[in-house]
């Protein structure tokens, strides 16, 4: 078991009313899962993903990640956790505009204090794997959307995470590019990486092994 969420609530107060963003969520994720979170706009998909990624807090409930209870951790330990085990992929790629492809992929390794030669080797592996050796000195603005997302995935993968969280990874891409990206995810999953993705598309969801449907912050069980 990789992570477990139990009786989790998240809300905001709006004009005296409590509006639930996440409402009584129970979720267990095992190693090697490929989960797709689906649901209409505003149903809480991204919020759930952020909570899982420890980017966002929650108000009530328990969250255990690799047998550590996240809700009792301090910022530093939490950062250590996701530094170690989690990689993020975003809809709008979120590459650092001022850094080259190579440097973008290298950044997580900087924060993990890898030595220079280690970094070089790991980044080279990634560039090889995604056929981007020739593009390593380009800036994000010089790449197509699909290529940027590939860099995003490479960056998420370079630190060898246990879990990849992807928030609509194909949302900004055309269908051909989208398919490519999903194929990449599929391969990764077959290699043993756990993936949780948020998606609107049934077709993309089908790549996963499990689908979770959200509506108004609640999981709908079929």
């Amino acid at each position, binding site marked *: 078991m990789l992570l477990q969420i139990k009786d989790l609530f998240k809300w905001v107060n709006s004009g005296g009313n409590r509006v639930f963003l996440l409402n009584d969520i129970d979720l267990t994720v095992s190693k090697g899962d490929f989960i797709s979170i689906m649901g209409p706009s505003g149903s809480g998909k991204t919020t759930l993903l*952020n909570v899982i*990624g420890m*980017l*966002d807090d929650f108000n009530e409930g328990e969250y255990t990640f690799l047998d550590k209870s996240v809700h009792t951790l301090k*910022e*530093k330990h939490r*950062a250590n956790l*996701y*530094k170690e085990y989690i990689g*993020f992929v*975003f809809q709008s790629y*979120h*590459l*650092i*505009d*001022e*850094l080259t492809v190579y*440097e973008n992929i*290298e*950044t*997580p390794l*900087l*924060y*993990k204090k890898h030595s220079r030669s280690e970094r070089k080797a790991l980044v080279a592996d990634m560039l090889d794997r995604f056929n981007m050796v020739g593009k390593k000195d380009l800036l994000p603005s010089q790449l197509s959307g699909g290529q940027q997302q590939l860099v995003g995935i490479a*960056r998420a993968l370079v*630190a060898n995470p246990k879990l990849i969280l992807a928030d609509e990874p194909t949302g900004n891409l055309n269908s051909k590019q989208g398919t490519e990206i999903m194929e990449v995810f599929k391969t990764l999953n077959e290699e043993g990486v756990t993936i949780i993705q948020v998606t609107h598309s049934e077709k993309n969801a089908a790549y996963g092994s499990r689908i979770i449907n959200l509506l108004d912050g609640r999981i709908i069980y079929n």
Partner: protein
Amino acid sequence: MIRNYFKIAFRLFKKEKRTTLTNIMGMALGITCSILIYLWVQDELQYNDFVKNGDSVCYVMTNHPITGGDIKTWATTPQPLKAVLEEKYPVVDKVALLSWEPPTNFKIENGFLQQNGNYASPEIFDIFQFPFVRGGHEELYNKTKTIVVSERFASYYFGENWNAKNIIGEFITTDNEDSYEVVGVFKNLPVHSTLQFDFIIPFAEKLNKNPWLNHWGNFQNQMYVQLVDGISVEEANNRIKNAIIDNRPDEATTEELFLQPFSETYLYSNFEGGKVAGGRIEYVRILSVAAILILLLASINFMNLSTARAAKRSKETGVRKTLGALKANLRVQFLIESVLITGFGFIMAMGIVSVLLPEFNALTGKDIGLAFFTPKFIMMLVAFIVLLGLASGIYPAFYLSALKPTRSLTGGGVHNKNEAFFRKALMVFQFIITMVMIIGATSVYKQVSYIQNKNIGFDRENLVEVSMGDINPTGNYQAYRKELLEKPGILGVTPINQNILDIGNSTSDPEWDEKDFNEITSFTIMCTDPDFLSTTGIRLKEGRNFNRAMAIDTANFIINTAAQKVMQMKDPIGKRLGFWDREGKIIGVIENVHINSLHVPIEPFIIRYDLPMTSKLLVRVEANKTTQAIASLKALHDKFNPGKTFNYNFISDMYKGQYKSELLIKDMVFYFTIIAILISCLGLLSLVTYTTNQRAKEISIRKVLGASITTILRLLSKEFLVLIILSMVIAVPIAYYFIWGWLQNFAYRITLSWVLFVISGAVTIAIAIFIIGMQVLKAANANPIKSLKTE
């Protein structure tokens, strides 16, 4: 990792050239100002710092109580005090007397060499330990007809290669035909010394020529003492305070002594009520504060701009956080950026400083060279730059690193209310500083021009003072006068005994009927002739002028209104007045005339018809004919004083000289205020640019809905104008407080009117409106589709 930070910083700078340049320029201006001020302040503080014995070397001042409980402090002492201090006061180790002397002319092969020097006790060299390169000062003790000269003097007198000659034992002759044997050559005195001389003749020689100096009542000399080791100035002060009172044999007196450490004499030269009351140190302080404020302005600019740009940086912060960056990592990154900006600002500032230094030296009359840039100074500067960078970067760094990744990744969460408030508060603070400086500069300017244009009671333009030389005021002066008045360009001439702008001669001896002898009133005295009033242009209020034909008039007096007041005479004409050797009547009253600086009130003043005492001539020349007039004066001087040098001074130049500090401070405050305005405007400019960018979408929507450009202009300007007006409201009382305090240094000063404040405020607002208007117009004129499409 650090390399990565640098890399991203440089790429960012390249990408946002305008913002970066604004930031660097602001910093550079601020740093330039503070370096210049620092150099000036250091130079000022260096004065009199060269003395090895530090505080044990003191200047002896005398306090003279006068009517009304006030005390006047003189920088002079009577000659017999030296022996008394040496013999009866064991806290005093050595005492040196130094005369006040005008420049002396020495005969050289074909003309004269004019040099500054004094008669002094040889102890002066023991106390200050000025080193000798040839001979020494020992012979000064033994023979009175001796002289020691500086290296500079030696090279002028004996030629560049004086070193190769044996000049010890040579004789030097003055234009008075006095010959002195050279017994030593000393190293030129340090530049940063208030004590400056190029030759010293034993004080005993002065006494031989002027035996009257031996009298206790003549406060004529400067006196330096060295205290015994281990005695504090305070303790010594207590011991010797009554040295005159206890030891003057001929009459009871009230003058107390006090010691001022030599190291303080330059910066603390004003005295009130017998105590030190500031001096140049005030300007050192004012400018130091100005330097800090200007740096603060630059630093605030940076903070404002960095937090305003947070929206742009927040995505990067969020991404980095999801990639595992800790807050600490991000803070280091942002701090490195701000240190880099400051560093570039510093490099630019160094460039500006090296270009401006000659101008700055000309302005301040200093000689600050690149010698100042010692490795130690550079190290200090670098440390300071890093500190400044950290100080400016700390807020943005903490602010940016604290942004939550979920919010910053969606681009939201940066329109924080507190943060907007903080930014506005910083801007208000900036404008308060700027406005205080503007009001300050305007007031200083007004006071200084008030001084320059003030009617001081006589026309100081086209008035020349010349030395009398060998002309005998009771002998051939009449012939000289007759001949001079026939020359073109000469309107009038009168003999006087001292500089009309700085009458040091004062006495409490005058006696009149009904004088209250318990009160001591001090009068300044001018000895002159009947031409004094017509030459100076001083008007008689009542009574009559001296009459050359009436021999008795030499015992009569003309007084000023202030004297009439202290003597409490309703109808002074014909009243008895007597002092020194003369007993006579008051024959005239003149208006109050500013004979001393405007820093002090007008003093009671008595004019005597006393030719034997006179030693200088005051000449009224015709405007536009001054060159011709000076030539006539010179020709006549050469005729009456063969072989003597001709010296002249325009009274108007001397008048300016009296307010040297004020004129300097006027210029410095003016330039630094301009820089402060520039920095604040840069800040305002970038903030307005940022705000209009932020609100581009709002502006577009309003335009689509039919808003006119003027409505938009008003909408966007309002927010800034309110802040600027708020700054003004806060700045006015602060400025008023400081300016009022400064003006207290002047007995005659401008009144602070509201007009001055309104004008200063209006100027600021006009500049602000211009800047805001330019930016807002640009935004308002932009095509709305452009900014609506980006969302």
